[in-house]
């Protein structure tokens, strides 16, 4: 059993990738769509892992960047007549540049102040999309742009391969110089700067990478949905991405992939609650934070788990978060 765990630790990402690649063969049409959305969310959340998990900068405007990517792709194709692949590349570049603008407030602001700035940023983008009707279609949304792949399955395979590459990259980034610099900045910015860490450069890299991934995820979203409206990019959506990164343990790429897919799947399991998807999300997040971060409650909770014989799970949860998924 211990050996099996080790294998999981080392080849977790590979196993996950293979599982995702064979999933379309065994899933029904609708389940497959949910899975697609889960993988697409995972790409976006991977960027948040770099931003929130590694560097501790709380961003609540990520839906705004997702919207930038998706709309940039759709509008470049519709209004300027770009070919799909060129449009996709330009959309990712535009989103990265927009996201870079956010790095400048982050030089001076931290904690709640930065969070408020990012909320403002996300809302400004949403309001602009809603009101610049001649360009963006306003509340009616845009549709009718051509897609990257004619076959839906190909989009999925492209996504999974991209996700696995990004996950490996993110894990490696976490252990590279720049990743360590980000983690040092998270612990204590002044101490990091005194130790010779170039805090500004680290922050710029973090924002640029997360914006790039949000842009890529937005392009894929546009390809999956075929229709974009400002309603899918509200600040409430940003907080569901927050849930995905927090539930993923804020430290591992595998955790992010699993939690993104599970959280995207959650409303399917809880179908009887229909419209209250975000209610469930936020409740789960509230309870999780309270249980996981207050030692006394955590002990009691693990005690209950043991009583019901879910011993292994409880023991695994006692592992410090950092150990999980450190293999690949």
């Amino acid at each position, binding site marked *: 059993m211990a050996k099996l765990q080790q294998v999981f630790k080392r080849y977790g990402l590979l196993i996950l990738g293979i599982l995702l690649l064979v999933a379309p063969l065994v899933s029904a049409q609708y389940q497959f769509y949910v899975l697609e959305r889960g993988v697409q969310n995972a790409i976006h959340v991977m960027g948040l892992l770099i931003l*929130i998990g590694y560097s*501790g900068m*709380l961003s*609540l405007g990520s839906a705004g960047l997702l919207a930038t990517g998706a709309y940039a792709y759709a509008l470049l194709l519709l209004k300027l007549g770009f070919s799909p692949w060129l449009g996709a590349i330009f959309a990712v570049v535009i989103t990265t540049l927009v996201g870079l603008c956010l790095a*400048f*407030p982050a030089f*001076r*602001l931290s*904690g*709640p*102040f930065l*969070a*408020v*700035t990012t*909320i*403002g*940023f996300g*809302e*400004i983008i949403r*309001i*602009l999309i*809603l*009101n610049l009707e001649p360009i963006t279609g306003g509340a009616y949304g845009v549709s009718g742009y051509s897609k990257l792949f004619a076959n839906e399955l190909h989009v999925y395979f492209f996504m999974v391969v991209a996700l696995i590459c990004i996950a490996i990259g993110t894990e490696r980034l976490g252990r590279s110089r720049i990743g360590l610099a980000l983690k040092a900045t998270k612990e204590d910015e002044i101490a990091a700067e005194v130790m010779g860490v170039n805090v500004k450069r680290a922050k710029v890299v973090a924002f640029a990478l997360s914006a790039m991934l949000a842009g890529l995820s937005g392009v894929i979203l546009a390809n999956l949905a075929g229709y974009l409206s400002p309603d899918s990019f509200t*600040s*409430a959506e940003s*907080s569901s991405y*927050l*849930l995905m990164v*927090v539930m993923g343990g804020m430290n591992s790429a595998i955790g992010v992939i699993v939690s993104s897919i599970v959280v995207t799947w959650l409303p399917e399991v809880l179908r009887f609650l229909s*419209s*209250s998807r*975000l*209610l469930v*999300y*936020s*409740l789960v*997040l*509230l309870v999780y*934070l*309270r249980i996981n*971060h*207050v*030692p*006394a*409650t955590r002990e009691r909770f693990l005690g209950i788990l043991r009583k019901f014989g879910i011993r292994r799970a409880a023991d695994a949860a006692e592992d410090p978060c950092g150990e999980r998924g450190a293999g690949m």
Partner: protein
Amino acid sequence: MTPAILIQLAVNGIAIGAIYALPALGISLIWNAAGLFNFAQADLLTLGAYVMYALVVSAKIPYIWAFIITTIVMGLLGYLLSRIYFYPMIENRVNPHIVLIGTVALSVFIQNLLLVIWGTTPKSVVNPFGYMPFRVGDIFVMPHVVWIVAIVSVLLLLLQFFLRRTLIGTGMRAVAQQQIASWLMGIRNDRMIALTFLLSTAIAATGGVLISAVFPLTPRMGSMIAVKAMAAVLIGGLGSFSGALVGGLAVGISETIFATLVNPAYRDVFIFAVLITFLIFKPGGIFKAEISEKV
């Protein structure tokens, strides 16, 4: 464009600004006492407004009694929130980022709870102040403007009296200044922080009751007001009593003028732009909280 129109707009803005000042003040109080920026303050205000709706429209309780019951119920809710949820986290020195995420989750939770219980249809509570505007020179003043300003002023005076002149208020200020020292002096930090949550939630609920007289209620209203309250508190200066008030009034007046003269669709964009400019160039706000002025 005559000065009379400007003054007219400013008068309308004052009422709404006074309401924004209430959750802003709550954010400031909690920030001082617990070092925690509460993103859910405006949603607590909305929750208060809906409780008022349930009491007045559904349960048909007289307006004044409903007002009092709403304030008390919401105050108790704030107390419980601190006792059950936030204080244990603060006590265990959980990373501030995590607690911040907790308040965001609370905000989303309240919004969707309202959505599930009351649905998306806007609900309106009767306006108890009447609809007959009276005239001062060239300016028409709605009665609710006068009432709202009066109620908010009385509330703020009472709060100042409580914080400055009573023993419990002094204890709360002591906790805000130096937690460890005040604990050594025999002040129970957990109770004082819970009391701060109680006060700020009750204040937010009062704001909710006042806003329910003017605007129809929707579950998403919280995020709209949250924007204004956060702008108010950060423009005014986080942690300062007068800052929250001045910030609230400034936001209320300037957004009313902007919406009328320029374009109502971009009102929130304008507020955010001002807010972000302030954050970047003057992060302390207008009244940077001095220790002596800390609420």
